[in-house]
């Protein structure tokens, strides 16, 4: 038996994010249909499910890159704001990592990481670069600080992107299929960085097709389909004892044999 408990903290878990009946419509299309979910501090929650099931949409709604059509998302006890200036304050506290990395091609790895603190927090260049250097070392790219994105492999680019998000010292990290665009041989290096981050106690929401990662690292797994959460629970529950036939179906399609 494995315990399902928030890591370390010991005291009662405090929710960082609460999704309450969140709806998202694109015209007629219902991308999210009353999704409710709670993410506690220090938790790693993996969102799995077929493409187009709403996982990435939920992530983008979390930092207001997409406005929601109904329901409420609470971050740190408060509903997401609607005023642009307040939205920016919230985004500064959430890091996001994209499927296609989205590094800035006109900046070196170092400046990709330093640009957030410099532009958004007004941090002096030397100080921002110092922080960037430390973060690049943390994702094992100390030797690539001066490289431009075009000279980095996919796995290296994604690690720079993780460092870039961490530079804002976020309270939550949102990962949107971080390994889907990677060559198989570089997936591991990115997952290792993410695993280390999880072990440090970072609160993480990870949209992923990496079932082995979800199985090993997640505290909870939520299975999406057609804009709703089919079921959610501990990885053991989801992977070894799924409640719904659709979950079993989805997992078997991915070659997951339990």
């Amino acid at each position, binding site marked *: 038996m494995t315990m399902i408990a928030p890591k370390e903290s010991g005291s009662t878990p405090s929710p960082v994010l609460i999704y309450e009946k969140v709806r998202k419509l694109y015209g007629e299309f219902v991308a999210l249909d009353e999704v409710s979910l709670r993410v506690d501090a220090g938790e790693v929650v993996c969102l799995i499910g077929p493409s187009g099931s709403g996982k990435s949409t939920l992530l983008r709604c979390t*930092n207001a*890159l997409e406005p929601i059509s109904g329901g409420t998302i609470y971050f740190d006890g408060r509903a997401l704001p609607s005023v*642009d200036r307040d939205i*920016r*304050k919230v*985004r*500064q506290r*959430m*890091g*996001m990592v*994209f499927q*296609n990395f*989205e*590094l*800035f*091609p*006109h900046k070196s790895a170092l400046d990709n990481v330093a*640009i*957030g603190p410099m*532009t*958004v927090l007004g941090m002096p260049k030397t100080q921002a670069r110092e922080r960037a250097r430390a973060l690049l070392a943390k994702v094992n790219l100390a030797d690539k600080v001066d490289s*431009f*994105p*075009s000279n980095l492999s996919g796995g290296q680019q994604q690690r720079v992107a993780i460092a*870039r*998000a961490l530079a*804002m010292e976020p309270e939550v990290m949102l990962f949107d299929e971080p390994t889907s665009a990677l060559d198989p041989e570089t997936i591991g290096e990115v997952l290792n960085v993410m695993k280390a981050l999880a072990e440090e106690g970072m609160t993480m929401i990870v949209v992923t097709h990496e079932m082995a990662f979800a199985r090993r690292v997640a505290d909870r797994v939520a299975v999406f389909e057609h804009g709703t959460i089919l079921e959610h629970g501990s990885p053991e529950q989801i992977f070894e004892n799924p409640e719904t036939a659709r979950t079993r179906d989805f997992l078997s399609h991915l070659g997951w044999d339990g």
Partner: protein
Amino acid sequence: MEFDFSPVVDSWRYLLDGVGISLMLSVWTMLGSLALGAAVGLGRVYGSAWLRVPLVFYIDTMRSIPVLVVLVWIYFAMPLLTGLNLSPFWSAAVALSLHIAAYVAEIIRAGIQSVREGQTRAGLALGMSTAQVVRVIVLPQALVRMLPAFGSIVSVTIKDTAIASVIAVPELLRRSETLAGQSFRPIEVFTAAMLIYFLLLVPATRLIDLLYRRVAHLGRS
């Protein structure tokens, strides 16, 4: 047939001053069309729907009227209509700027819109404002992508200054016409003019191409 290039050789100073005026006109036209084109292009991408209507109208107008017509209108018709009198040189600079700015605006719009939406999302996700995203992330990449197109604008501008000859701006072509008329040596004089334009432009376009190849990767997201 016998060729005699002595009129060109004897009057090299006269022609060279003409080249100087052609280049001066090019520089003013480039400054004018860049400033106006940037304003129109940015307005078209980031402006309100109301602003976009007149801007699109301006671009369409300038792209459908021959630059020569704009030039003679500004030089001959505008003073009669408005009482505003411009010298031939400034008439040419204004006409060329108005014309070329429309193309510059389109290049700027296309350059900005070619930068992937995800780049903007990445900037916003860090907490940047839209203005910061444009300034720090989108425009630098867009500028790199615009370089080859700006290369053509530079050569089109220099070439188009030749039309200023119709309102007697004493630039290279005008002076060549004068010299050809006086010396009865049109073949030699106009061939020399052709060669001068060629020698001015080939290095310029090569240089921009070279520069672009150096920096292309900075705009590739």
